[in-house]
């Protein structure tokens, strides 16, 4: 009994020493202390403060969004101007273009052997043609067979390279993604180095190899190295490494063969990436310049990209229409598959 009492007293003393109150202050009491007017005033003050703060925040946010929109709009305008410029100008008549832009090429020395002539004149930048004609297009497509041949050359060079490289890259990147070993990483690293190498580095040996294979000055001289380029492998391997290993294990347990895993799991999962890559590769090879210049000495065989840059100057009258027609296939592909492209590109960058 004594001990019990002592214990309780000790507890009370300890609590008192530590200033521990078992009773809590009732939350109401703060407001109850106020008079009604005070309370009203308090609430009014608080309401006002919070509304002004909210308003300020809203204003700041609107201003920031407006600034952001202005920046984004101006940058996208910069991105779009050249494209619109080309298309709008392609509907001008040739005379108008020559009167507007011929001064530009008088001052250029680029491919012109006579050198630059610095006559100070100003070109007229016009976006809207005075009279809308499709004469440029008709001259280009019906009077100028060379152009159509070059267009066909571009297609016949680009499509096999893109298709072939995708097929080879799917197989190779599957093997790189599925089996990671030290030595294979070294091989992968060397693939990356090869991907980064500019074409000019191996220009001479490539020329010699094409010569010994007897494919110099044929389409194969460009198609074959293009098919085995390692760019697609790099991107696709990065993508395939994201496939959860659980999928593959589950398929193995269900008795799928290696080829089935490849065709039924890996490829469908990488559909977006394959699509995006196809577009990227198409643009890349559609724009080929160096390879045809060196490996195709016969100008008949050269693609449009080389030809167009050469006719810019002498035939400015149809240059814009030529550019527009040349731009149409990539733009169509882009509009058609933009969603896949964005999806495919985006996933390749995240680890």
């Amino acid at each position, binding site marked *: 009994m004594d001990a019990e009492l002592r214990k309780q007293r000790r507890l009370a003393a300890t609590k008192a020493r530590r200033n521990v109150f078992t009773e809590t202050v009732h939350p109401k009491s703060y407001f109850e202390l106020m008079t009604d007017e005070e309370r009203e005033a308090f609430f009014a003050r608080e309401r006002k403060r919070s509304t002004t703060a909210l308003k300020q925040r809203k204003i700041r946010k609107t201003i*920031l*969004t407006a600034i*952001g929109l202005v920046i*984004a709009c101006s940058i996208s305008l910069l*991105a*779009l101007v*050249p*494209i619109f*410029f*080309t298309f709008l100008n392609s509907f001008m008549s040739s005379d108008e273009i020559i009167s507007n832009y011929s001064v*530009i*090429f*008088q*001052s*250029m020395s*680029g491919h012109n052997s006579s050198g630059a002539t610095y006559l*100070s004149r*100003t070109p007229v*930048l016009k976006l809207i043609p005075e009279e809308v004609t499709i004469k440029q297009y008709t001259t280009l497509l019906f009077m100028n067979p060379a152009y159509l041949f070059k267009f066909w050359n571009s297609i016949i060079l680009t499509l096999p390279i893109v298709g072939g490289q995708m097929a*080879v*890259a799917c*197989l190779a990147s599957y*093997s790189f993604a*599925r089996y990671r070993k030290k030595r*294979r990483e070294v091989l992968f690293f060397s693939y*990356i*180095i*090869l991907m980064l*190498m*500019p074409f*000019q*580095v*191996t*220009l*001479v*040996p490539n020329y*010699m190899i094409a010569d010994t294979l007897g494919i110099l000055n044929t389409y194969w001289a460009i198609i*074959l190295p293009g098919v*085995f380029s*390692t760019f697609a492998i790099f991107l696709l391997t990065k993508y395939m490494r994201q496939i959860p290993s659980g999928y593959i294990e589950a398929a193995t347990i269900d008795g799928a063969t290696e080829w089935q895993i*490849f065709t039924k799991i890996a490829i469908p999962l990488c559909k977006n990436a394959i699509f995006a890559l196809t577009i990227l590769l198409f*643009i890349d090879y559609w*724009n080929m310049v*160096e390879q045809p210049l060196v490996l195709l000495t016969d100008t008949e065989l050269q693609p449009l*990209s080389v030809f167009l840059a050469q006719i*810019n100057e002498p035939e400015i009258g149809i*240059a814009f229409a030529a*550019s527009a027609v*040349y*731009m149409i296939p*990539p*733009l169509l592909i882009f509009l058609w598959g*933009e969603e896949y*492209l*964005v999806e495919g*590109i985006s996933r*390749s*960058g*995240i*680890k």
Partner: protein
Amino acid sequence: MGLSEKENSSFPKETETRVRPGSQLAPENKTTESAASRHAAVKTTPKKTRSKKRADKAADDHTGNYAARITPKAYETLVPGDIPEFEDTPERRALVEKRKKGRFMRRLRDWGIFTGYLTPSFLGVLVFFFLPLIMLLFTSFQKSPTNTDFVGFRNYERVLTNDAFIAASKNTLTFALISVPLAVVLALFLAMLLNSGLPGKSVFRSILLNPMMVPVASVVLIWQVFFSYNGVINGWTAQFFQLDKIDWLKSQYAQVVIMLLFLWKNLGYNMVLFLAALNAIPGEILESASLDGAGPVKRFFAIKLHYLSPTIFFVGIMSLINSFKIFREVYLLTGDYPFDNLYMLQHFMNNKFTQLDYSLLSSGAIVMCIVMIIIVGVLFYAESRFDSDVEE
């Protein structure tokens, strides 16, 4: 008490025997013993994953390497029955043999599959990329393609003292060093701008992705119209600011003009990559950081940058590739011999090709290869270091 102390002190050293203190395995029982000791070795020796101690500890915690964490006291409660023990019977031996064989066959099959999938690509790369490089290496030590005398490093001396080569590599390097970081930073800025709740995000995204699609000849035409001596830009500056006309592509600003072209072409692609990476950052972490009082700047440098690092490396590599590809435009705009500060390594090689100076070309190419291997190697090493940080 004394005994347990002794055990304590000797605990970390005796890794082999400690798992089987009272094991009844006979010493002549070879296969099982080796199996058991291998078992023990795997369990007890801490895995040296990376040189960092923290990584070690984390790896032990996650991989379930409990043996590394067992205290001596807890260890005493392990009874011999806990350790699997195998009798040395002929069946068991046969099983072990079979398993060994199976493992070998499986590894062989894996290797076969790997090689099978890789073969088409590897053969092509061998013929069209590795073989040329090896030929390049040979010709770089020869006097000339017709006179195949070994001349040692004479060609390298020649190329490294060649003014054109030095100027070209300087230009290429400057271009890459300025434009690649600029492309990364601007794209990141744009991505963050679009990601900050701007209306019409996807519209802007597709608009900015558009320049990537414009073919090279069209780009060249547009740039000619805008930046030549009698071009549109000069017309504007003369009209509005009364400035003197400059021939942009033949002045000190030539590289700036090309950089503009490079950025115009590649910002969209880089931005899409960054947008995806920004969306992949877990929102809870950002939220909790902002609750802890981290401002936007702090949040960016402490959290976002960390998550973005793989993407930054990827974008950097892609921009590096594209900065080499910009040669097409430069070549079509300005021809074989552009203004001094646009003379790139590719121009040098192209010109040496047309001049038939193959030995100089090949030694220059090899020098470029070596520099590139070093750069990419450093990039990848850095990436793997950053990756390991993120995984932790």
